[in-house]
């Protein structure tokens, strides 16, 4: 096919007030703050970067080992290691702002209060396209219940965040729930701009020789191709129940994988674990989506969203 027709393809997409030049992002925690990958790929080509979770105070993270490989999957228990929002703003964001790509800042905390103060701190900051609210952390106040497993806590948190900040809020859903659409609906009602799904699936692996868990933290989050069918299912379910733009992730390694999410209802996708395997994945996915659109005769990316028969 001619390069002419490829030029006519419009990959841009709007997620509420967030505009992306193409629908391919990199997922939080798998791309650091962009610095390392900038040595390998051109960050300007990405639809956006979802940065590693930022917390109000610096966090040391979990004891090693923090990673274990499983069949077609990766268990991680990093434990939100990060230098805290002040260092992020001073040392990390200025670098990211140099690129022509959407910067989405993943925020996390153990108390509602922490999220709110983070949002305050980030509210006037330039160059942030959205805040991704990571509600997969245990709420230490409410007896360790994970925020994201409870529709009411989710509603309350997102609602209050919306009152504090004008930056669009993307709520990141955890798959470790009976019905993800309940949390999705609560987020919508609370005023989320978009949703991203899924975060990692809680898992565990044991070294039978040493008889010890393979992770220092005992359990960890499962990511990678192994979880893709779970993520696609949740995307499809959520697409039918809410009216928000959805960002799909979970085991995407190539354009075909990404298209599964898009046909199931995703307005954008994010590459996570696959960055470790091949740093070029996101760029190849962009190319592959373009090719698919060409072959299928689709000009606007929007027309692919939820195109499942």
């Amino acid at each position, binding site marked *: 096919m001619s390069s002419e027709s490829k030029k006519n393809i419009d990959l841009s997409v709007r997620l509420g007030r967030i505009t992306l030049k193409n629908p391919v992002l990199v997922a939080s925690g798998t791309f650091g703050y962009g610095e390392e990958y900038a040595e390998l790929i051109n960050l300007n080509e990405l639809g956006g970067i979802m940065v590693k979770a930022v917390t109000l105070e610096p966090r040391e993270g979990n004891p090693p080992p923090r990673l274990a490989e499983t069949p077609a999957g990766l268990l991680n228990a990093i434990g939100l290691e990060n230098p805290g929002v002040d260092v992020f703003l001073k040392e990390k964001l200025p670098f990211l702002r140099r690129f022509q790509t959407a910067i989405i800042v993943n925020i996390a905390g153990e108390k509602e209060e922490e999220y709110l103060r983070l949002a305050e701190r980030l509210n006037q900051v330039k160059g942030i396209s959205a805040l991704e609210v990571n509600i997969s952390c245990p709420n230490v106040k409410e007896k360790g219940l994970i925020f994201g497993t409870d529709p009411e806590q989710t509603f309350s948190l997102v609602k209050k965040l919306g009152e504090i900040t004008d930056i669009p809020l993307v709520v990141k859903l955890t798959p470790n729930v009976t019905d993800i659409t309940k949390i999705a609906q609560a987020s919508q009602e609370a005023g989320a701009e978009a949703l991203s799904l899924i975060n990692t699936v809680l898992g565990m692996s044991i070294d039978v020789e040493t008889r010890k868990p393979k992770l220092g933290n005992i359990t960890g989050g499962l990511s990678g191709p192994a979880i893709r069918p779970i993520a696609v299912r949740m995307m499809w379910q959520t697409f039918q129940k809410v009216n928000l733009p959805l960002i799909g992730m979970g085991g995407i390694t190539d354009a075909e994988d990404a298209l599964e999410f898009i046909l199931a209802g995703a307005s954008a996708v994010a590459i996570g674990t696959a960055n470790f*395997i*091949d740093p070029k994945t996101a760029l190849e996915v962009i190319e592959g989506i373009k090719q698919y659109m060409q072959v299928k005769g689709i000009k606007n990316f929007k027309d692919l969203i939820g195109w499942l028969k």
Partner: protein
Amino acid sequence: MYQIKAKIILNKKIIPEHYKICLDAPEIAGEAKPGQFVHIRAREGYDPLLRRPFSIHKSQGEKIEILYKVVGKGTQLLSRKKIGKKIDILGPLGQGFKVNPGLEKVILVAGGIGVAPLYFLAERLAGYTHWKAEKGSKRQSIINDSSINKNQLDILVLLGAETKEKILCLEDFKNLNVKIEIATEDGSESFKGLVSDLFFQLLSKESQVNLVCACGPALMLKRIAELNYRYKIPCQVSLEQRMGCGIGACLGCTIKGQTGYLRVCRNGPVFEADEIQWNEI
């Protein structure tokens, strides 16, 4: 740091379970420094999912060499790769050994496959191949071509292995004209015992050691680090940890340092021994 498809020039078993693979990787060879590593994708597909890290064992001209031991799926797949095929590698990665000008005596302590990066280091120290000046790097103290030659520097290499048959790279080291001492666990050659025990024994004899560089199993490194701490000898160790990205982005490969977690892939794999909290190992 480059991601390239490197052609396999050679891939052969040298002793049971141990292989050498030589790769055509001009960009990486051009910049590689002793102690740095490459991150290799053993095969396409999902099984295994992640890359595998290996120290650079040799780097000459446009080629690099890896010395590896088959321990699981990834290394097994690597051992079956045919000459002429290409593999996807990322490198050179991490911080290598830091060697100041003006050294007089260096001891390299290798436990088993840990010899891999130490040969590369010995070769550079002995002046047979040359350090390249780094372009715009923040790295502080790297020896440059002129500041070193084999006459100035006294290099002692300690090789530890389970048995005589498992001693690695002996001929290579002999060709460098360095001093070599051997420890075997079963006593089938020279000193009987762990290489760290041999090191301890030698410490009392050797004076004026400026630097110890070590690579091997974690417990061996811990012992070496303790000894050097006791004798106040500067010591650098090359550590291992399960890796995800290999470039510093995922925070998956950390170990406990004195001031918090350190990324083995980015802050290391070579660390000053006193940066590490050894009681956590």
